[in-house]
């Protein structure tokens, strides 16, 4: 009997989440799109035949939207005659990995540091904030050049540089939120009931800061992709023939007049991913806030 009850419970929960998605069509499209991107990131490289990523100078800067060639060339070809679609798919893996890791790393580290700084205040809090100031003032390019000189260029170093330079915004935002939340009644209540500091921070305060941090993170995803683009353009990022969307955008810079698609399509995909992430985070924000959830629920639904 217990098992059946639990199974029903799980199925009902799933149904509930599904119905909340159905009530926000934009979020639904977003999550489908993102799952597709993750799929491409993992399996994409295996699905493309090598011929489309090989250099073919006769197809250099081929214009898009023509039906004269194989469908893989529908979005045109790049400066070396490689299919845009193939290159975009190949780039998904690197881009997602770099941007995803950098954002998660900076959000987590920055968020935790900001929480500690806001809650404890005092010397530690001050020290952490001054660290944020220093990081903000240190030009990311110089950091990238230095890291490059001391270590070999590589994906991991790029992630570290990008994560490090984006940390301050999370540190400062988390701290700002904590400063405000800390003064609320329920926190004083928890303290007077004897809850430990750590418990208060992570069980009570942190969840309230997450929505704002996630809003920033989803937009930061796009900034990180573009930041990586700038670094690659200056030579301290990804090395060809490895590719990311950001590198494709940077390389398309010289061709804006004669081959606008080289920079346009990768830029478009960056925008679409950022848009999806943000729509999803908006949805998440409403779902996680008990006071807002009603907007997505089917009130009066008998399948509860």
């Amino acid at each position: 009997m217990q098992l059946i009850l639990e199974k029903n419970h799980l199925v009902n929960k799933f149904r509930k989440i599904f119905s909340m998605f159905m009530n926000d069509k934009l979020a639904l499209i977003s999550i489908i799109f993102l799952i597709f991107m993750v799929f491409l990131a993992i399996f994409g490289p295996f699905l493309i035949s090598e011929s489309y990523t090989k250099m073919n100078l006769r197809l250099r800067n081929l214009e898009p939207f023509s039906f004269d060639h194989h469908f893989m060339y529908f979005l045109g070809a790049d400066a070396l005659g490689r299919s845009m679609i193939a290159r975009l798919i190949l780039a998904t893996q690197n881009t997602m990995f770099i941007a995803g890791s950098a954002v998660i790393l900076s959000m987590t580290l920055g968020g935790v540091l900001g929480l500690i700084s806001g809650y404890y205040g005092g010397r530690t809090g001050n020290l952490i904030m001054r660290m944020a100031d220093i990081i903000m003032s240190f030009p990311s390019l110089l950091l990238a050049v230095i890291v490059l000189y001391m270590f070999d260029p590589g994906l991991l170093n790029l992630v570290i540089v990008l994560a490090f330079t984006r940390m301050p915004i999370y540190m400062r935002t988390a701290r700002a939120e904590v400063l405000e939340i800390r003064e609320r009644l329920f926190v004083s209540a928890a303290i007077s009931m004897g809850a430990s500091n750590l418990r208060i921070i992570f069980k009570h305060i942190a969840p309230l800061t997450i929505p704002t941090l996630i809003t920033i993170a989803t937009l930061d995803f796009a900034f990180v992709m573009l930041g990586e683009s700038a670094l690659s353009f200056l030579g301290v990022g990804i090395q060809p023939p490895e590719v990311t969307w950001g590198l494709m955008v940077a390389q398309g810079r010289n061709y804006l007049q004669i081959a606008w698609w080289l920079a346009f399509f990768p830029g478009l995909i960056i925008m679409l991913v950022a848009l999806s992430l943000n729509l999803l985070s908006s949805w998440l924000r409403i779902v996680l806030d008990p006071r807002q959830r009603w907007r997505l629920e089917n009130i009066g639904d008998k399948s509860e």
Partner: protein
Amino acid sequence: MKLKNLSFAISTATIMAIGSMFSPAYSAGKDITIVIAEEPDIVDPCEATRSVVGKIVKQNVTETLTEINPADGSVTPRLATSWKQTDNLTWEFNIRKGIKFHDGEDLNAKAVVKSINRALNPKYDCEIRTKFFGNIKLKASAIGSHTISVKTESPQPIMPALMGTMTIVSPNTQEAKGVRDPKGTGPYLFNTWTPGQSVTLKRFDGYWGDKPEVENATYVWRNESAVRAAMVKTGEADIAASIGVQDANDPKMDFSYFNSETSRLRIDLTRAPLNDIRVRKAMNLAIDLDGLMGTIFPKGVVKMTQIVVPSINGHNPNLKPWPYNPAEAKRLVKEAKADGVPVDKEIVLIGRLGIYPNATEAMEAMHAMLTEVGFNIKIKMMETAGWLDFLSRPYAEDRGPALQQAQHDNNNGDAVFSMFNKYACKGAQSMTCDKQVDAWITEATAATGINRRDTWRKVQKRLHEEIVPDVQMFHMVGFSRVNPRIKFTPTISTNSEIQISQVKFN
């Protein structure tokens, strides 16, 4: 609500106030505007051999003793009217009479000697010295009011050509490098320099030569080639000295010109497998140069057979470019492999971002073509500083086999400016060490006339056929955009100088 209105008002007022503090640079009538790629960090004429300085100063504000004719590399008079070699180690130059500097001083032998000594003063690092006179010990003295003698410790047969780099400044010029309002003898006065924004030149009415048509010239700078091209198109500028091939899409306004640059991949012959000549030959045969012309490289480029361009004394016209023969390349690679040469070893292809337009694509193309015939290549694109570390001595002891993307320019008339540094045993960027090449280089440096020319040619032939130190690519082409209201034709020297006196109005 009030706060918002107030802030909006403040911001608008600020825009107006700050905006009105700056004045735009427009040209009209007999004035022209030239847009270049970067701001000159310095305008001292002793740095005039640097292209960013030379474009503004060379032959406009200050003039040189002699001038190299861009068409054939011959040496013609400018401030010096004639010269002769009095003995093995001494040259005499006669200075043109009746010329005054912009500040009223006379151009005489004393002034010229003072200017030469200033440029060659080891206390300051004038590029004229570091690039051209670095190894030469020279003593200049005035003999007579308008004659100087230049004595060197070793024979310098090309002293007249070297003097084509020597810009002459007024004797009142400060000794230390860094003068911000240079005074020379040229057709234009250095008028203003608004840091970050523009430099203006004004026609000098006391000029000794023909009066030029342009009255005032304003130089501005924009990094982005697309913006430079756009400025000429809209009329904001009259000349965009160099634009990228992608932006040169208007045949009415755009000119292509040989810019005296030669691009190649330098091979590190000291490291296996590159120390096997079959491997080096295979690399050259693997490159489809025709396929690259008109695609990644502009249409007008010329396949290289040697590092100097055809107009340079010492160029060997009898050498043939490498054909594209991937089958033969593969065969050579197989043969080398069978003999135990480690052809599968990873070879690093060191590139430099922006060294010429489409630099990265060029390296990706080379990567693809070399991989096709069986090599294991890894691209490493770097910014200038990192790339330089690999280019010049001292080389890292623990380095592996590498190819380096490089470009060399020599528009100074003679092969001597290229050969030693690139191919002599002790050359600063040389990976080659061949006794015969070294002997011929030494011989040619001291020789004159036909003997000199032919010795250089022997060096080129040996390098091209028996040593193969490079993957040979192209003699390069640049593009300029010129507003139809003026007449200006770029030449092989356009990268280093823009002579405003040659600009005429239509």
